[in-house]
């Protein structure tokens, strides 16, 4: 059921290579340019953060695994620009515009960058009363999958699906990505920090004292008894 980005717990990726203390923020100029274009294109308002994340996740698994981090951003941005009709596939192929765009009035100007970055995009909303309370035992749904759209965006990782954990915090109601990524509105839902014992997730090789905490929306959770 899962997609290639859902890699928590996976084996075979080798060692983590820490960077050097003086490593630059952007290793290559085009990395910086990719981040900036992605943010500037997002300011045109033709998609939201969840749509944008899903565009990266639905790259073909071969592409997702082979492309570097910022190459995934480029690929996803190109796909979204064409899907949303911001540019045509022919324009993308030619690398030149065939005409202007009605969205030009929304262009992010240099003078507004500071204010846009400082403003952010909070996702807390008014919503329903929480069904669970602190210290409740909850069980995550299985399989981890978008319940509206087959293969759709979801934020319940596979490794934490079908597991029992304990509610440690309630964050209020947040925009529900499973809906928001697929044109179903914000659909705000209660969201909780839920703790899972490491040994329940990974077996006896994990330290019995360790735990993993995830932020999970209420539709991912059911009451756990016993």
């Amino acid at each position: 059921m899962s997609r290639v980005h859902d890699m928590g717990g996976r084996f075979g990726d080798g060692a983590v290579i820490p960077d050097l203390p003086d490593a630059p923020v952007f290793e290559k100029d085009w990395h910086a340019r990719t981040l900036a274009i992605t943010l500037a294109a997002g300011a045109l308002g033709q998609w939201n953060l969840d749509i944008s994340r899903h565009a990266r996740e639905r790259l073909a698994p071969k592409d997702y695994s082979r492309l570097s981090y910022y190459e995934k951003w480029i690929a996803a941005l190109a796909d979204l620009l064409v899907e949303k009709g911001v540019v045509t596939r022919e324009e993308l192929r030619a690398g030149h515009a065939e005409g202007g765009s009605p969205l030009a009035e929304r262009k992010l100007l240099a003078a507004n960058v500071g204010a846009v970055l400082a403003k952010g995009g909070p996702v807390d909303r008014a919503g329903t009363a929480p069904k669970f309370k602190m210290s409740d035992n909850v069980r995550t749904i299985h399989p981890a999958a978008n319940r509206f759209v087959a293969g759709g965006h979801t934020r319940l990782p596979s490794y934490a699906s079908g597991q029992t954990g304990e509610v440690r915090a309630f964050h209020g109601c947040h925009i529900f990505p499973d809906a928001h990524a697929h044109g179903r509105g914000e659909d705000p839902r209660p969201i909780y920090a839920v703790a899972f014992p490491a040994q329940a997730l990974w077996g006896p090789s994990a330290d019995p004292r360790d735990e993993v905490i995830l932020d999970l929306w209420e539709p991912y959770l059911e009451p756990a008894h016993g």
Partner: protein
Amino acid sequence: MPHDHAHDPDHAHAVLPSEPALRVKALETLLTEKGLVDPAALDEIIDSYQDKIGPKNGAKVIARAWTDPAFKAALLADGTAAVSEMGFYGRQGEHVTVVENTPEVHNMVVCTLCSCYPWPLLGIPPAWYKSDAYRARAVREPRAVLAEFGVTLLPTQKVRVWDSTAEMRYLVLPMRPEGTEGMSAAELAPLVSRDAMVGTGIARGPKP
């Protein structure tokens, strides 16, 4: 190496040039010609994250928490409000929770599904944070990953890994290093490394 980027010809991105730098350039040229992107705005975004918004912000928060008990209490109770008061609210830091390391608990942050990270406090995440190896392993074997960062835990510490699956962004409040008694927040801030605030490092005392 022609055609090595187009495994999936149904996707629009397959028509872009194969060299990544040229791919970005093609997008920038096209969007600029269409009047949708202002190259000066791109420069401004890059300058912001290259020079202005980075781990020095988070370090100021941590150093203040080490020296101001009332601020520390406020920070742990409502991270978003406390960092906002210091001017560190913004994109990818709209909801902030600060988690405290103690002799009993070591906290460590990951995003297994993508690369969520508290931008206004730590800037753009480093390559290792976005790597498959970190995303895959931090949740399953955090102690082995910590060893690769040269971190040795106290025998009394459990490990609590925070997988950033939603828009809550996590900042680790490291333990204040020994030998720093009497130091001011301004003197302490340089001791707070980025990795210590992600939980893949610890704050180290001043070099003797």
